[in-house]
């Protein structure tokens, strides 16, 4: 590029794109090789710096994109070239992928910093400080994989990242694999990790099928090639596009925790809280939303698929929100809230409101990361209080304290934390209000954009989402009242302590983002809309422009305030302890029991899928494999035949009769000959003399007669 062009068109940093993957990989390697000799601060610092540098690169890409709207594709290496299949490791830099890079890099860095403080205490509560380094290696690996996912220029590179983040998710959910969430020896965390991995496999299977159909139909999985040919294929063979999009939806349901594959996400809270915030709320789970937004040129061709995606999203949003109402674990409420909010995003991108979906993705990353990290701060604060309390009772109540398993995450053990942890309280309030969609916080703008789009695009989905929004405000209100207000219900909560600045500073940054995030796409300005549109204009995609709808905004705000008021009536005035039933139970009765028990979906899956599957596995293992293959086929047929051949045919016939017969026969006949010849040796001298005489006669006779 000439200097004059730089002057006119602005700087071009696209060539830096591969560094979004390289930096975390370098950080990971440094920590793996030298981390053992470094202190906790250095390990955390290196990991955070690596993550921070990816954010810097993302910002540079953002600056470049402001003047070069069309973006760029940076070829790093040719990967696979077989016949028609040509796959490269190329980095696709456009407004959509850069948005994801900024979210992953930015929120990721804040969570890295927070985790330095969090893990410092976590590894000590669980008596294994050696694991501190491993945690940060995994976090950097996650950032690298997520960056591969969002920067991939073809569906296969995207899939590589997709699987990479799935692996990191597995590793981090099972980070404390030898215990359960209460640090008791158990396989519970390991089971949760397996559940997440296997459930995601079901979704990945769908994604793979979609990719294979795509290659069959388009002879390519490269984004631009596929999107440009999509119109042509859709005219001749619309079923193919429908199949691709619906199989892709299965992958989306797995990764972004939608019905029917959402069940892994609540259990994923077994991982340390920064993991819940980074992977299972802010970034990884949004990969499905990103996939649909990225595949917009395909989805817009098949309205049936769009309808199904939107309905799945809407149903998930409402369903998960009802479950969140009945939960007592602070992180579990947030987990179901995440599923519900992902439902909002999937519904939005399903309806074709790609900008609204991506907007909510960004703001949700801010406030949900904030909420999870604050929840982690609360849990650690209560844990500290518990240790203080236990220490105070050291002499008189020693045995009792150690036998009792204390759950620092149970909201019924909390209450009144507002006074003990004021900073955490305030940022939590900001996060909750943002999530509930209260003006003018970030969630208000993004959620209302989705609702406004839904009203004009799909009324069913609008109703589902509006009700879900009501529940959202209600369960957040319930949580805030139970955790922060009222009187402490446990001495641990009474003595809870505020977290150190290394944790609270990232919280404050995220709180600021949760307040200001809405400014990204204010009605009338539409900065974010124009920004994302640059990605789509290449494919002449007509994006639906949702206008700000004041009726929708007022309706949802009134609903949210109503829900918060209702939650105050039920939970704000009187403390809920573990001994008494939830106040809502008296009103709703069996419905609340259903919410409390997650509508027995896990039990249903056990009954319908897992138990029959395990029975089938037992059957194949025991009957087919062991009894049929091993006992009958191997032992009887193969080994039996072999033994018959060796014993009867080879041993008895060939060896014993053939070879032994020959050798023994030779010996026997020699013996018989000897037996016969021995008869000549009579021992009588005259016999010998006679034979000599005969011999002489014969020889002489011969000589004479010759």
């Amino acid at each position, binding site marked *: 590029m000439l200097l004059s062009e730089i002057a006119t068109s602005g700087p071009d940093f696209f060539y830096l794109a591969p560094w979004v993957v390289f930096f975390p990989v370098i950080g990971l390697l440094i920590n793996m090789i030298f981390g053992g000799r470094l202190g906790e601060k250095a390990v955390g610092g290196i990991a955070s710096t690596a993550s921070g540098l990816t954010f810097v690169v993302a910002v540079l890409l953002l600056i470049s994109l402001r003047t070069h709207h069309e973006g760029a594709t940076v070829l790093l290496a040719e990967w696979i070239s077989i016949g028609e299949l040509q796959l490269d490791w190329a980095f696709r830099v456009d407004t959509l992928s850069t948005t994801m890079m900024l979210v992953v890099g930015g929120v990721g860095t804040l969570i890295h910093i927070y985790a330095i403080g969090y893990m410092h205490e976590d590894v000590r509560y669980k008596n294994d400080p050696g694991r501190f380094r491993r945690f940060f290696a995994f976090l950097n690996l996650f950032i690298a994989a997520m960056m591969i996912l969002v920067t991939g220029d073809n569906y296969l590179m995207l899939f590589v990242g997709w699987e990479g983040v799935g692996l990191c998710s597995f590793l981090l959910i099972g980070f404390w694999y030898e215990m359960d969430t209460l640090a008791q020896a158990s396989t519970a965390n390991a089971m949760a990790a397996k559940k997440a991995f296997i459930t995601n496999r079901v979704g990945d299977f769908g994604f793979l099928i979609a990719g294979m159909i795509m290659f069959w139909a388009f002879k390519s999985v490269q984004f631009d090639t596929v999107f440009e040919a999509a119109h042509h294929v859709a005219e001749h063979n619309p079923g193919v596009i429908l199949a691709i999009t619906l199989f892709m939806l299965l992958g989306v349901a797995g990764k972004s925790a939608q019905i029917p594959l959402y069940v892994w996400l609540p259990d994923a809270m077994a991982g340390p809280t920064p993991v819940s915030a980074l992977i299972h709320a802010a970034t990884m789970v949004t990969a499905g939303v990103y996939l649909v937004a990225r595949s917009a040129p395909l989805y817009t061709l098949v309205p049936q698929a769009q309808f199904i995606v939107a309905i799945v999203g809407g149903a998930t949003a409402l369903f998960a929100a009802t479950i969140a109402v009945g939960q007592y674990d602070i992180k579990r409420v947030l987990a179901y809230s995440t599923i519900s909010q992902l439902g909002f995003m999937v519904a939005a991108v399903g309806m074709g409101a790609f900008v609204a979906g991506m907007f909510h993705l960004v703001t949700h990353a801010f406030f949900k990361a904030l909420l999870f990290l604050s929840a982690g701060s609360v849990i650690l604060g209560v844990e500290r209080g518990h240790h203080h309390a236990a220490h105070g009772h050291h002499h008189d109540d020693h045995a009792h304290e150690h036998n009792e398993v204390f759950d620092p995450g149970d909201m019924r053990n909390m209450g009144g934390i507002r006074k003990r942890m004021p900073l955490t309280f305030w940022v939590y309030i900001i996060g909750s209000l943002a999530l509930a969609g209260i003006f003018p916080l970030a969630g208000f703008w993004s959620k209302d954009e989705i609702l406004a789009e839904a009203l004009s695009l799909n009324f069913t989905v609008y109703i589902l989402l509006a009700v879900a929004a009501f529940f959202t405000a209600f369960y957040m209100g319930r949580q805030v009242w139970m955790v922060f207000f009222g009187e402490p219900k446990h001495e641990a909560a009474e003595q809870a302590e505020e977290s150190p600045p290394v944790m609270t500073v990232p919280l404050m940054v995220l709180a600021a983002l949760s307040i200001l995030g809405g400014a990204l796409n204010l009605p009338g300005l539409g900065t974010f809309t124009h920004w994302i549109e640059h990605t789509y204009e290449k494919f002449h995609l007509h994006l639906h422009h949702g206008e700000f709808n004041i009726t929708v905004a007022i309706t949802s705000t009134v609903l949210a305030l109503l829900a918060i008021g209702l939650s105050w009536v039920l939970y704000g005035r009187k403390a809920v302890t573990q001994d008494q039933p939830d106040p809502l139970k008296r009103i709703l009765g069996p419905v609340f029991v259903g919410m409390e028990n997650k509508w027995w979906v896990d039990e249903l899956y056990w009954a319908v899928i897992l138990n029959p599957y395990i029975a089938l596995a037992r059957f194949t293992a025991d009957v087919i494999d062991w009894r049929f293959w091993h006992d009958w086929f191997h032992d009887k047929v193969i080994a039996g035949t072999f033994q018959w051949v060796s014993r009867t045919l080879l041993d008895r016939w060939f060896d014993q009769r053939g070879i032994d017969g020959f050798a023994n026969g030779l010996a026997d006949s020699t013996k018989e000959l000897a037996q016969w010849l021995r008869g000549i*040796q009579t*021992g*009588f*001298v005259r016999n010998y*003399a006679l034979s000599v*005489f005969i011999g002489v006669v014969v020889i002489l006779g011969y000589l004479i007669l010759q």
Partner: protein
Amino acid sequence: MLPVSYYVGLSAVLFAIGALGVLIRRNAIIIFMSIELMLNAANLAFVAFARVHEALSGQIFVFFVITVAAAEVAVGLALIVAIFRNKQSIDVDQMSSLKG
């Protein structure tokens, strides 16, 4: 003078008697004497042919034969004594321990 065939015929008869004696008798002394008979039959044939051919070599051969026979008798009698000491008998059929 008698023709030489008479001597040769006598020699053959003596040899046959000696051979027959060796083959059919069991007494070691008798067998020994039969062997001497065969040797002397040979000596007779030598002398007779020496006379016919007027060559002295045949007669000299006879001296050798007589010498060897004397040595043989010495050895043979010693063997017979040894056998007798062992078996209290000179029956050669008793000496059949090499029977197969």
